[in-house]
């Protein structure tokens, strides 16, 4: 497959749909979380309003060049991840640029945002940012480990690194999904998924009671708005990767919406009544529980 110019508007369309869906989905998740606390929660359109407001803040200050680039890097990570995996399997319009990238690139993009954030937040000079960043990097690293192992396991299983081909191999029946052909890898990856969603019990990076609120402490106005945009794109992009690798991908938008919702809901469901782990506790948790699963997944294959 070759690059064609028509892919650019198609990709932008994907991005547009995903951003809107993400804005609504995160609000919906917050509402579900609020219901657990017996509240109604925010209006479903609240994220749009917050976004407009933050873009509309008149003044902003900066701490240096990296401070600018941090949110930009982060957004690049999210958008890049989204664009280099096929959003809808088999669709000409929504396969984006997936012909050009493979799983390794996706893994790289997942990490890219955190690194950009680390540089940006470090520049802000706020001690809470620095603490949050160091916590974040150590936790993300250990959380990615089982995921990387799971990815290797299924790459071995399907003998390919191309996301499209992996999805293709899972078509036909529900029983062809990796979820059922390699449950160990999926389990390892889902545990890692919990760790990267910044929800309890693994939200020590943001931890408003301890280091309010971690890396983004100094970010405001448009910087924050950029990060908010990323915050709705990135989880969905990540879920798309998960969906493609483990849950048979999606061929139509309704299936896509449903699967993304369910996978997102998984992290909420687990976390909503939990307190958070301390960073060394969560690192240990990943090493003790998720890592062996990942190794076992490779061994089984």
């Amino acid at each position, binding site marked *: 497959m070759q690059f064609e110019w028509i892919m650019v508007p198609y990709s932008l369309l994907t991005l547009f749909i995903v951003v809107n869906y993400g804005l609504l989905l995160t609000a919906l998740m917050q509402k579900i979380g609020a219901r657990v606390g017996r*509240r109604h929660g925010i209006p479903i359109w609240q994220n749009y309003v917050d976004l407009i*407001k933050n873009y*509309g*803040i008149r003044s902003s200050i900066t701490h240096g060049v990296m401070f600018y680039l941090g949110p930009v890097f982060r957004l690049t990570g999210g958008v890049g991840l989204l664009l280099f995996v096929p959003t809808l399997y088999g669709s000409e319009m929504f396969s984006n640029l997936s012909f050009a990238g493979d799983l390794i690139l996706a893994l790289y993009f997942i990490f890219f945002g955190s690194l950009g954030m680390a540089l940006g937040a470090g520049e802000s000079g706020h001690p809470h940012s620095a603490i949050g960043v160091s916590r974040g990097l150590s936790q993300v690293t250990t959380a990615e480990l089982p995921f990387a192992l799971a990815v290797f396991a299924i790459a071995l299983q399907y003998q390919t690194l191309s996301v499209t081909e992996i999805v293709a191999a899972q078509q036909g029946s529900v029983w062809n999904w990796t979820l059922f052909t390699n449950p160990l890898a999926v389990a390892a990856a889902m545990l890692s998924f919990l760790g990267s969603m910044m929800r309890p019990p693994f939200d020590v990076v943001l931890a408003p009671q301890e280091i*309010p609120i971690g890396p983004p402490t100094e970010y405001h106005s448009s910087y924050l708005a950029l990060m908010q945009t990323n915050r709705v794109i990135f989880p969905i992009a990540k879920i798309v990767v998960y969906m493609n690798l483990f849950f048979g991908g999606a061929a139509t938008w309704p299936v896509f919406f449903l699967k993304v919702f369910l996978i997102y809901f998984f992290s909420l469901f687990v976390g909503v009544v939990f307190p958070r782990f301390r960073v060394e506790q969560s690192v240990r948790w990943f090493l003790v529980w998720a890592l062996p699963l990942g190794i076992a997944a490779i061994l089984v294959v």
Partner: protein
Amino acid sequence: MKDELDKRLDNQPDGPERRGSLKDIPVREELLPRWVKGPEGQEYVVEPLQDYFCQAGPTVQTPAYTRIIEDLFNWARAESLWILGFGTGCGAIEMRPLMTPRFDAYRYGIQWRPTPRQANLFVISGYLSVKTLKRAIRSYEQMQNPKYVVGLGSCTINGGMYWDSYNTIKRLDDYLPVDLYITGCMPRPEALLQGFDDLKKLIRAGKAEGANHYAEHFDWYKANQKRVIKDWDMPDYSW
């Protein structure tokens, strides 16, 4: 509120003479100029107040867009009030019921932000002692324009119960540009919700320009603040 403030600014009250210092307050040690050794052995002078802080004051930020965009922004600002999580006084106790099942202010786009950078509404929840006033000013100045201040309770209006206390200020609007007062001791959550509703109306109408007012009359506010805070050992404006 703004008209009244302008009126008062025109006939500047000759505040009472600053009382003579009975004891001199030394500048805190870490703010004194000192020699610092760099990692490679070179030495240089550090003057914390000069080097670590920007000396410039705030500037007036005019709405640069067309009317319709400014209206859209104002609507968004009104519907997305992020309160700074700084409970300055006893009013903070009614904040928790406000954000929980019974009253659930999240429904109206109100939420807490733990850092002043991201907040746009500062709720002064009750009396301010001089020590807290100092922190409140710094927190306020770190918020980004446009920002709003709501004074909660009688004690922010005229001192309330603590009218004769030696440690609490009596008029909040001398020190920070207040957009709205909510009366009561203590104001009920319903009153708070009503107050936020009124604040939203002000914002939508484009009347809540406290931050610009602060920038315009920066010297007046600073003079008032310094009259009360005797050990002013921070930069004049905290960026």
